Every structure is written in structure tokens, then in C-alpha cells.
């Protein structure tokens, strides 16, 4: 087969291509969801490397499942673009297996690094060749050998965990020179910061690198979802990350709809788009307020905060709740947009877009502000690709991946919008991306609200049935992947959330190497990530 022939057949016959490349070592099957590539453990690293190096695929998530008949199913999810099928590399293992080859030490980069560390902590699976396992989600006070995600562990069981004897976390540092030290930041902050711990390793004025520890807020959402009905888990899906509640609730509902084969009525899809974009607007404006605040630009912070509160109030007016709790259900949405609200929303969105534009213009002419952002917290395009970064952070360094384009959901296929892109990857590029996305969100809202379809807003009651589905949604801070498996009785068997904050916090340390102390809050703010979303 010539190269051009491969290129021609690629989208339609990826399974064939895969089998011919890995003769006799894989079985590939293409279905509506993805190309399932089943392989044996020794081949796994090479196949994943082939996917990301030669085929241009990006690692999305690793889903570990303990099957009911004893055994493991590991699904490595890869995606590329709208034209190519998603790839699930599947590994079925005997229950006695405790070690799997790691794929995070490869040339394709460490995208799976955190996923493997999490699986090691929560399932007790080890990953051979992984450079650093242990103590990740569960901190050192957690009893050795207790793995909460295994079926044998009861989520209701209250563990008698002693409080850590030494609250001062003391990981190995790279410097031991006299005068060098590690400056702790968190987990309790002086303002409204979210719990997370950073150690800034320094030999004087400049910070050489940052060591980070998350999962202070681990609430075991995936574990406590198991065995519960869909409507209860929806509460968790919405509330594990309140500032992106609609996006995550939507992702969960879409996964359930795929399994149960439910068609959402056109008006329901349009309204989902409206709420999702309002949430994105609010998230981005809040992030901009945070960036202004981190540079102590008081008036700009106040201006952005006013817009933010106006957006929150707008959400409350159209969807009852200031953060869209309870707005989405499997099959549609719960609140309709009356004509009066539609008109009001159209004018309000226009006005907010104008105020954001004015704010952006004024910020662009504030040189003292720009000085703090330019060339600060740089993420290179190569690093972003290697870490599989998503959302505005990836788009600020040349990667246009956006789930609204790659796998259009809700009503995104019917609207015309652009995915903004910048190349520099610094704080200023991220700020510009946030402003540009606000403009696009306003444009999307305009198109949808002008031609809002009539009809029902939700499908009739759905009937749960067993199955598995992966839903991908572009949450405000990037791609979110929700993997849902339903049992025969319609209860949740496995719920795996891969949030954009989880993916992007992994790459945060790239932006925090060799910088000045006072830039740390600015870099932190320009990432605009949520720890609740990461920790789950």
C-alpha cells in the first residue's frame, strides 16, 4: 500500500490500517463510538507511541475498570480530529495481574503520567517503567494497601485515618546548597484560594522549579457514584466542580443518553448550548478578574467582577440557579427560555460583550499590566502537545483542539464560530485567548438565540439500560471526558471523570520553572484552573 492510499483509506478503515500495521498482535474493530484496538500488555507502549508519534493522536484518558467476572479492563482513549475515529486501546487482564507497562515514559511524552499515578493509588495497579509512583491522590496519612476504587472497598466505610503527624510536606528537592530553600504556598490561602500545595524551590531571588501537590479536596466522587442511580449521580456530576457545573452535568447526561439511545429535542439541544456558553462567559470573565487581581490592577478587577456578577445574575434569571445547578437532565434541560427572557438575553449578551471589549482595549493600553503578563509562565507548543494540554491554555500555544469542533454536541454543529489561537504561550497570550473566546461565545449565543427552535425541551422519561459510553464536552477550561458504564439494573457501575483541570494542572509545572517569586500568583491566575475539578 502506498502512503497516499493509506491516507485515503484512513478515516473509513482505521481498523484495517491498525491490523495491517500490527499484524497478528491486535484485533481492531470499528463501531459508532470508536475504533477498539485490543492488544496484549507487551505491545501496549509501542501501539500508544505509534498512535501519538505517527498518527498524530492525542491521549485523552485512561479508564481502569474492575470487571464483575474477575479481571481488569484498561481503556486508553485517544482522539485526533473531527474526521478520524477515536481510538480505544483496550487491555484485558487477568485479576491476578498487578503490573502493567507504563506508557508515560515514551517519546510521545508524559500525557498519561497522572492517570497512571492515580490508578496506582486508587486501584493498586503498578505501572512498570513509570518514573514516579506512589502518594498522589491519597496523601501519606492514608493507610498502606487500602485501595478505595476496588469493588471490595466499601465507600460508606469510615476509615480511622490518623491525622498526619507531620503536616509539613517534605518531598525531595533538587537543591541542597546553603541558602536554598523551598517556599511553601498553601493549602490554606490568604484570600479565597482553593486548597492545593505548592513548593517553590529557590536559591535566592528566582524560583527554579515548582513542586505541586493536589488532591486535598479528593471527595471520592467516582467511588461514591458506583451502585447509585443515574439521577443521584447527576447531582455529583454537577456539584464536584461548581464553577463548571453545567458542562460536567451535560457531559454525564450525554454519556447516559448515548447508552440509553435517547434523542434530545432540537430546542433542548439549543438551550444546552445557550447555558453552556453563558457558563463559559462567566468562567472566562472570572478568570480575567483573577488575572487583573493578581497584578493588583484594582479598577480593572472591579470592572471584571461587575461583569461576572451580572452574568451570574443573568444565569439565575434564565435558569433559576446562579451556577446552573439542576438545569440539565438526561434527555434535555429542565428550564425553558420564555420569549421575554430570550429578548432580555440577546440584549444582555450584547452589552456584556461590549463591556468586555472595552475592558480588553483598556488592558491592552496598560503597559504596567502587560509587563507583568508578557513572557511570564510560558508553555511551549511542544510541551503542550507532549502533555496533551487542553482548552484555552493549549490554544494559547498553538493547539486549536476544541471538542465543540472535534465532536460537535448540543447545537454546536449548527453554529458558525471560530476557535481562537495564539502562539506565544505566555500569560498575555492566555489573556487574549480568554477575551477572544468571550467574543466567540457571544457570537454563538447570538446565532442560537436568534433562531431558537420551538418544541419540547426534553425527551420523555428515559429507560436505563446496560452499556458504556464516553462523552466529551468542551468545559470552560478545556476538554472534559466522562466515561459512564451502567449495570444491568441501570445503576452506575463505573464513572470516570477526566477534567480539564486535571489535564492542565499536570502541565502547570512547565510554566513555573525559572521565574521571579512575584510572578507566581500571576501564572496561577492566568491558568484559571479549578482544584475541585481536578481533585474530584
Amino acid at each position: 500500500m502506498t502512503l497516499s492510499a493509506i491516507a485515503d483509506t484512513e478515516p473509513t478503515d482505521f481498523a484495517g490500517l491498525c491490523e495491517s500495521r500490527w499484524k497478528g498482535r491486535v484485533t481492531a474493530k470499528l463501531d459508532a463510538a470508536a475504533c477498539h484496538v485490543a492488544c496484549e500488555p507487551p505491545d501496549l507502549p509501542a501501539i500508544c507511541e505509534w498512535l501519538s508519534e505517527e498518527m498524530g493522536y492525542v491521549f485523552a484518558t485512561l479508564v481502569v475498570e474492575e470487571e464483575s467476572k474477575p479481571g481488569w479492563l484498561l481503556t486508553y482513549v485517544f482522539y485526533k480530529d473531527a474526521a478520524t475515529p477515536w481510538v480505544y486501546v483496550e487491555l484485558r487482564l487477568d485479576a491476578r495481574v498487578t503490573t502493567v507497562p507504563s506508557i508515560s515514559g515514551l517519546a510521545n511524552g508524559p500525557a498519561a503520567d497522572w492517570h497512571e499515578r492515580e490508578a496506582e493509588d486508587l486501584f493498586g495497579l503498578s505501572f512498570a517503567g513509570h518514573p514516579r509512583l506512589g502518594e498522589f491522590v491519597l496523601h501519606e496519612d492514608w493507610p498502606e494497601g487500602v485501595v478505595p476504587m476496588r469493588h471490595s472497598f466499601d465507600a460508606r466505610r469510615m476509615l480511622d485515618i490518623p491525622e498526619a503527624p507531620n503536616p509539613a510536606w517534605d518531598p525531595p528537592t533538587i537543591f541542597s546548597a546553603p541558602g536554598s530553600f523551598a517556599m511553601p504556598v498553601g493549602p490554606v490561602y490568604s484570600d479565597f484560594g482553593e486548597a492545593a500545595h505548592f513548593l517553590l524551590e529557590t536559591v535566592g531571588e528566582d524560583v527554579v522549579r515548582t513542586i505541586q501537590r493536589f488532591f486535598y479536596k479528593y471527595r471520592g466522587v467516582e467511588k461514591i457514584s458506583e451502585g447509585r442511580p443515574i439521577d443521584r449521580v447527576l447531582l455529583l456530576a454537577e456539584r464536584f466542580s461548581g464553577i463548571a457545573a453545567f458542562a460536567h452535568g451535560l457531559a454525564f447526561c450525554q454519556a447516559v443518553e448515548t447508552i440509553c439511545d435517547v434523542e434530545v429535542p432540537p430546542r433542548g439541544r439549543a438551550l444546552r448550548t445557550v447555558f453552556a456558553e453563558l457558563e463559559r462567559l462567566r468562567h472566562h470573565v472570572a478568570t480575567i478578574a483573577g488575572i487583573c487581581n493578581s497584578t493588583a490592577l484594582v479598577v480593572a478587577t472591579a470592572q471584571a467582577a461587575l461583569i461576572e456578577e451580572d452574568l451570574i445574575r443573568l444565569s439565575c434569571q434564565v435558569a433559576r440557579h446562579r451556577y446552573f445547578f439542576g438545569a440539565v437532565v438526561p434527555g434535555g434541560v429542565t428550564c425553558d427560555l420564555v420569549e421575554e427572557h430570550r429578548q432580555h438575553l440577546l440584549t444582555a449578551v450584547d452589552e456584556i460583550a461590549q463591556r468586555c471589549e472595552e475592558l480588553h482595549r483598556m488592558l491592552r493600553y496598560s503597559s504596567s499590566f502587560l509587563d507583568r503578563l508578557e513572557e511570564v509562565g510560558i508553555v511551549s507548543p511542544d510541551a503542550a502537545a507532549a502533555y496533551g494540554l487542553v482548552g484555552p491554555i493549549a490554544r494559547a500555544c498553538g493547539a486549536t483542539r476544541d471538542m465543540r469542533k472535534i465532536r460537535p454536541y448540543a447545537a454546536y454543529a449548527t453554529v458558525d464560530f471560530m476557535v481562537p489561537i495564539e502562539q506565544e504561550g505566555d500569560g498575555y497570550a492566555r489573556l487574549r485567548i480568554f477575551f477572544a473566546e468571550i467574543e466567540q461565545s457571544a457570537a454563538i449565543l447570538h446565532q442560537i438565540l436568534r433562531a431558537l427552535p420551538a418544541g419540547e425541551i426534553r425527551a420523555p422519561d428515559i429507560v436505563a439500560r446496560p452499556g458504556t459510553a464516553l462523552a466529551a464536552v468542551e468545559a470552560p477550561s478545556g476538554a472534559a471526558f466522562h466515561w459512564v458504564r451502567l449495570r444491568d439494573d441501570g445503576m452506575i457501575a463505573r464513572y470516570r471523570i477526566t477534567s480539564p483541570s486535571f489535564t492542565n494542572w499536570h502541565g502547570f509545572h512547565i510554566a513555573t520553572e525559572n521565574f521571579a517569586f512575584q510572578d507566581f500568583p500571576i501564572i496561577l491566575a492566568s491558568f484559571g484552573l479549578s482544584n475541585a475539578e481536578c481533585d474530584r
Partner: protein
Amino acid sequence: MANWVLKGLRTRIKTSAYRSAAEAVSGLSPGQPRGVALPAHDAAALVERCPTRAIDSCEGGVAIDQRRCVDCFRCHADVEEPAVPWGDGYEWAAYADDVAAMRRKLGHAFGRSLHIRFLDAGACGACMSEARQLINPYYNMHNLGFFMTPTPRNADVLMVAGPVSDAMRLPLRITYEAMPTPKRVVAIGACAASGGVFGPSFAAGGGVAEIIPVDVVVPGCPPPPLAILHGLMVVVGRKPPSELISRPSNGEMSPE
């Protein structure tokens, strides 16, 4: 150079009237369910439908435990009968229990200057976002004499959100112990009040009161900024507290 001073002046004063007068802009608050008189079988249906056991049957109807309500609207909107009435308003803060009510307000000295330490004990981000609004111009808690402080040594009030995840138990206790007396603890949100949708489980507790004594509870998921502000006013005795349980009689009396 952009003229921020002029921009700030042109924006004029945006601060809410909520201090002396009531604030009634739409979108301030998602509201709260209210207890209602109902026949026994309707009451039982509502109790069954509530996912967080916030609704309990009581003499002649249902009572709502506001600490447990997570704003899912399943007892009110988009549902078949029976439904509970929904009250708006935002003055929801109340003393956590009788002991806290005995301790009551901090002395007059704190009435005009209160320093607050905020602690995230596993909150989802919405409570934090609402608390953060307190320093934006709309709510401007500074002009009430409320300030955030960067150290627990200077703090009079510890404001906590979240069900208290396992890893935050120790930081919470250390922070509380580092504060000088007299000190008060304000738990904001359903998670901090009752564990919300997360706790109690292996990873999260059933609220802040399991770890440290709580004085004032601000229910809501999340409580809107004015409810949190009301909570702070209750701490210093500038506003009377509300009730945590809404019963049929007082539910009907306060339509607001």
C-alpha cells in the same frame, strides 16, 4: 495609558443597598424551598423524592432542613404534584445550635471591624465564587467593616466551605487553633453544614461541625453573596438570625 481612574468614576457606585434596606434585583438568589402543610401521602412522596433527605415529614406536612438542601429543584420545578413552595430572599444564616446561640455575638468591639480567614475544606468552587463576590463592588463587604486577613493570627472569624475532605481536616484544625479568642466559625454552604452530596463517606466528612465548633451556618448550594453577608452580620449581632428548619407554619408566613 488607559485612564482607569476616570473609568472607575464613570462606573459610579454599584454597591447593594443591603445593609439597611432590602435588595431586590432579580438574579440575586436562587431561593429556598419552604415547609408546607400537606396530606400525609403527599408528604411521604416528597420525602421519598428528596435526594439529600432535606425534606422530612412533620406534624401536618413537610419541614425542610435547609442545611441539607442542595438546590436540585426536584421538589419544586418541572415536577408533578405535590411540590413545595419556593421562597426567595437571602437572609438565611442561623446559629448552628443552641450552644452557639448562647455564645451569640462577638462584643461591640467587633461590630465595625471584623477580620475573616477563609478556608476551603473541599468545596466545589461555587461557594468560593460566591464568597469572592463579597469583595466585588456590588457587595463591597469592606464598607461594612469586614476584611479578609492573610493570617489566622489576626482573624476573628473562620469562614469554611466544603464537607471537610480527609486531607483538609488537619489544616482546618490547625487554622482554628491558631486563631486568638474570641473567635467564631461560619460554615457556608450545604457541604459545610451537612456534608452535602459528598459526605459522610470514606473521603469526606459530614460538615465542619465534626471537626471544630461552628457558630453560624449559612445554608444554600451555594449560598448567594448576600446570604453570606447576612451570616457575617449575624456573627456581630447586626442582623437577627434566621431558622435552619422551615416548618409548615413559618414557611407560609414568610413569603418575602
